[in-house]
């Protein structure tokens, strides 16, 4: 496909910064705008861009059905897991300050970060799954 050189080159240059930005938005949600939802969507969008340029089959090689299905509940389980960890540490469900991670403020900060990462994983996985399952190959 010689006519698609431009798309391929652009995608190669665009996807890494987009993914880095998605991770930044997830990790930086506590101090700036953004968070798990937005960052997850950006991460998912970078993979969708890959599929749009390289085709559905190439995308399936990069991230297999098993990986997608594994990541889908992973984030939600991380979220619930942090909540249960708070319970086990003697606090209420999702009471981050009870986590044994130094002072309560620090624990809350880390708890929120963990929750954001969980949200990001699930949202990204759902976005990718929605696209993979809905799109049809012959359109690309």
């Amino acid at each position: 496909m010689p006519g698609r050189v431009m798309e391929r080159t652009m995608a190669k240059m665009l996807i890494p910064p987009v993914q880095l930005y998605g991770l930044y938005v997830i990790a930086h949600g506590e101090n700036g705008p953004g968070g798990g939802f937005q960052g997850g969507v950006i991460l998912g969008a970078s993979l969708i861009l890959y599929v749009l340029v390289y085709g559905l089959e190439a995308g399936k090689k990069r991230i297999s059905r098993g990986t997608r299905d594994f990541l889908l509940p992973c984030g939600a389980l991380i979220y619930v897991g942090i909540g249960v960890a708070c319970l086990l540490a003697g606090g209420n469900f999702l009471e981050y300050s009870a986590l044994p991670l130094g002072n309560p403020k620090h624990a809350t900060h880390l708890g929120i970060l963990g929750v954001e990462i969980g949200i990001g994983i699930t949202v990204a996985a759902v976005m990718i799954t929605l696209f993979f399952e809905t799109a049809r190959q012959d359109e690309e």
Partner: protein
Amino acid sequence: MLELILLFFLVVCALAAVQMKDLLSSIMLLTIYSLIMAIVWMSLNAVDVAFTEASVGAGITTVLLMAALSRTSREESNRKVSLSVRAPSLLVLFLVTAVLLYGTVDMPAFGDPEAPANLHVAPEYIKHAVHETGVSNFVTSILAAYRGYDTLGEVVVVFTAGACVIMILRKIN
């Protein structure tokens, strides 16, 4: 003034998206709608909401709608709706619009410090959120800490949506 112009274009985009026979154009108009909406949120200083609107509304929704479009025809079907359906729906439309407009009469002005929303829990969050959580963006601390259950619910909703799509569409594929 800027908001008025933006809101005017918002209405134009919404009407045009409904009227368009070409569904791809409709999707593009909805993208523009979301982008304008994001700018409106920005001008209201709601940065987090604007971010979500831009990434979800203008970004991912467009792609997902186009993916859905790849499974159907690009043109809207030419089905004529009879007057006996149109007249009552127009009546309902006007009634709902009137009720909604009537509802806005009582609403406090935008940014009114005396508004109930600004007097109840919001000052508490603004005062204590940064000290209690060590997180400087208190939108995040409200979402993840004070309203952690709600956000958990949202994540479960997103997960359920993904799981349902897998269950329904994999069978078809």
